[in-house]
């Protein structure tokens, strides 16, 4: 009972933003029309929030720092080396890994596309907006 009361209090104090309302309305509509299974939706939400993202990529990089044989495998075949961690799937079909050195700095830009290695990087929404491409000079 108290749980329900506090939920109602939450509804009254936090007014959802316009996009939140519109997405909620669309979700209700698609469920009502039988186009979306709410249980499937919850699985997807859980996956995106908890099971994919840069933490996975960080594990890969950390291993490469301490294990030079792994690092070489990673540079030779990114997809296979990353799959050793069990990370695979969405947009990770053909991964090339490049190394930053004191003289070469790599910048990965997602251009006219939306995801890069869902498992390892997640959804890098901010990288989609490409501005003037200018790598820093010699530092």
């Amino acid at each position, binding site marked *: 009972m108290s749980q329900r009361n506090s939920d109602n209090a939450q509804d009254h104090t936090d007014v959802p933003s316009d996009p939140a309302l519109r*997405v*909620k309305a669309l979700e209700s509509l*698609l469920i009502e029309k039988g*186009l979306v299974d709410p249980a499937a939706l919850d699985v*997807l939400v859980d996956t995106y929030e908890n099971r994919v993202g840069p933490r996975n990529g960080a594990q890969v990089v950390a291993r490469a720092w301490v294990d030079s044989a792994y690092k070489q495998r990673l540079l030779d075949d990114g997809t296979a080396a990353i799959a050793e961690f069990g990370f695979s799937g969405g947009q990770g*079909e053909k991964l090339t890994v490049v190394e930053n050195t004191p003289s070469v700095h790599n910048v990965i830009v997602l251009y006219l596309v939306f995801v890069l290695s869902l498992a390892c990087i997640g959804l890098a929404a901010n990288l989609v*907006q490409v501005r003037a491409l*200018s790598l820093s000079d010699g530092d």
Partner: protein
Amino acid sequence: MNGIHDMGGMQGLGEIGYKENEPGFHEPWEVRAFALVQAVRSGGLRPYIERIPAADYLRMSYYERWYTALVARLIERGVVTRAEVERGQADPASVKATPALTPAVARELLFRTPQTEQNIELTPRFHVGDRVCGRNIHPTTHTRMPRYTRGKTGVVERDRGVFNLPDSEHVSAEPKLQHVYLIHYTAHELWGEEASVHDSLYIDMREDYLEPA
């Protein structure tokens, strides 16, 4: 298309705001919007995102564009009506469908590695080391060729293999298979003499986008 989404080289858009440990989603509705797109299995949304009028595109946040594109596609395909979207309720006469995505499939969907590279022998038009120039194409529909490569000369760095041309995917069901090449452009070539002599840009370009330099 020559749309606002194709921003490479534009100026005046402000600083790219890098944030440490930025979450994938800033608001709960964002992850739900993205999950809806996957759950509905509606197909490619890029052309619909690209068609958002420029002023609206710039005003919208990233996932707002996804939501807008999803609605546009669902309406265009007759899956929902605009009135239903605005009410958030199904038309009383509508027939209940079966969901495209089940929880079981959803669980492993994102970890399935799709096979987009085609296992087919096609004679490549270009080879590593060739000098190539971006063609002066101005499609009004979806393309993966950014405007800043038109008329620019680069060198083939690598042959990526054979893939379907995404430009035609949205126009016809006929696959258009061709080689994709990693092209190396110098910063000078793309951004002018003021650009650093140390900088380079590598970009995957479809064979249809290129001609011999």
